[in-house]
């Protein structure tokens, strides 16, 4: 069943109030952000930023509890929500505090993989588009990064999210990750960054009729080259690495006060919800099946779900919360 209700970006301002009233999962979201109330003030000192209509951007939003958060979201209906760091004081009061005393203290360790960083190795799409041919690059990124963060770094609480258009994010929520220094964050990101230079060598040329046949031709050539001693080393592996290895933006991971798009907000261009993905079943995730706000509202109206459910509709891709 497709949930793509033929989304029209112009309808967003009308749909958002309904989304924030009936669908946004305030309960699980607050439970996540509050981290069990330990330490205290973790939620109240968290910075959120909103992008309102007409691209008005407001920072240093903070809330006293779940109710306050709900009320503000329903009142302001932000087109985009970003999550920032937990500060020493309530962000909304930051102007009353001496600037040297208002400091970002903790935040999840985050990673952002953007499909546009693979433009030199994908030929099906470019820019903001994605399709079934290039989506596997994201699947590879999830598998490699997920395994490294768990096996090498010992992190356990990872939230993987689809951004709604061309990227994926990973939120590492372990206590050790949240209290990591800037140096620690950049060290983890640099450890992951095996491929830095992007070789856009057009080795494929005009051979073959599709990717599969081109790869077969290349492999055959490599075997020939090896037998004649022209070819040495691990060229196949090198090519695979250069083309497929995850490409991270280190600057996103480095900064403790960096603001990253929040899960469960709506992507204004595609209308898709920024949904969690299950890394253990990442092969089954299909970005074209992700619910859109228009599709969801349509479903709600047609089934007449009672309005008391503040936890919101269960969205595709099991939430790991």
């Amino acid at each position, binding site marked *: 069943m497709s949930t793509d209700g033929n989304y029209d970006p112009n309808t967003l301002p009308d749909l958002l109030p309904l989304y924030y009233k009936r669908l946004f999962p305030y309960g699980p979201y607050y439970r996540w952000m509050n981290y069990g109330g330990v330490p205290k003030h973790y939620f109240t000192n968290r910075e959120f930023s909103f992008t309102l209509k007409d691209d008005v951007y407001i920072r240093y939003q903070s809330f006293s509890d779940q109710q306050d958060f709900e009320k503000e979201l329903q009142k302001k209906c932000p087109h985009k929500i970003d999550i920032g760091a937990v500060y020493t004081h309530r962000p909304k009061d930051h102007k009353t505090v001496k600037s040297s005393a208002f400091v970002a203290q903790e935040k999840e360790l985050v990673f952002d993989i953007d499909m546009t960083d693979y433009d030199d190795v994908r030929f099906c799409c470019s820019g903001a588009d994605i399709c079934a041919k290039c989506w596997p690059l994201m699947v590879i990124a999830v598998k490699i990064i997920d395994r490294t963060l768990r*096996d*090498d*770094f*010992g*992190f356990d609480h990872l939230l993987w999210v689809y951004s709604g258009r061309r990227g994926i994010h990973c939120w590492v929520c372990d206590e*050790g990750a949240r209290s*990591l*220094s800037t*140096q*620690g964050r*950049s*060290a*983890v990101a*640099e*450890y992951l960054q*095996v491929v830095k230079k992007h070789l856009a060598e057009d080795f494929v040329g005009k051979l073959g009729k599709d990717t599969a046949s081109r790869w077969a031709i290349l492999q055959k050539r490599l075997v020939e080259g090896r037998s004649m001693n022209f070819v040495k080393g691990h060229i196949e592996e090198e090519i695979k690495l250069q083309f497929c290895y995850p490409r991270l933006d280190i600057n996103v991971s480095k900064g403790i006060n960096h603001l990253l798009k929040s899960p469960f907000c709506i992507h204004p261009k595609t209308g898709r919800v920024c949904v969690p993905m299950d890394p253990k079943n990442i092969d089954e995730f299909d970005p074209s099946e992700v619910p859109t706000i228009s599709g969801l509202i349509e479903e709600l109206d047609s089934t007449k779900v009672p309005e008391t459910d503040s936890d919101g509709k269960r969205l595709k891709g099991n939430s790991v919360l």
Partner: protein
Amino acid sequence: MEFGTRSKPRSRMKNLPSSNLLDENFPHRIQLYSVAPTDTISLQEFEELAVERLKVLKAVETIGITHQKGSAKYCELLEKEIGTTKLRDSILKVNRNQEDEGQRRKRDQVSHFILRLAYCRSEDLRRWFLTQELDLFRFRFQQEDKESHARFLASNNLKYKPVGKSERESITSQLDTPDCFSNMDGVEFYKVPFTEALDLVRNRKVFLQRGFAYVPQDDLVSILLSVFRTQLSHALTVSNRLTH
């Protein structure tokens, strides 16, 4: 800094019995400077210690620019330069009688803390001081032998445990390139939280598992530098806030 007239320094410190100092406060020749000195000294001594340590740090800086750090030539030159200062007995490894060892280590500590006050004032000054002190630490540490290294770890409560035999076997079997170590048997590995081995982690120069870095003994100094850097950096920031 304002200083009094230069006359022969008469230090109160010389009155303290050496043996006490050694055992309690300075269990090792090399320090992490985590404890500040609490006694009083004369202005003359204050000035002398500051000036002499600055000479040492300047030597570290200059020689580090023209020679590769850790190379034989670097060590030789640095030792010579430091040897011309009045802190030579406190900094360099020389055969010395144990009697005055406590005093020597005390001068090392006090001179470091005096310069901290001077160099905490701005980001540039802090960065300079941190860099030279780190290089000095590395130089001194690498002059020590394995046994001395182990004593240093113990006396600073650094719980870097050498990895036990069975764990070691399971680790070394996962190291894909055995030609890194021609003889793995002699190599001691230390299990350290990855956050304390960031330089090794960022360059993928160490094996990681479940958040721990398995550091071969030759890379131990890298870990210690990391610890030292974090501590000193934090201390400088605190000093700055307290004094300004």
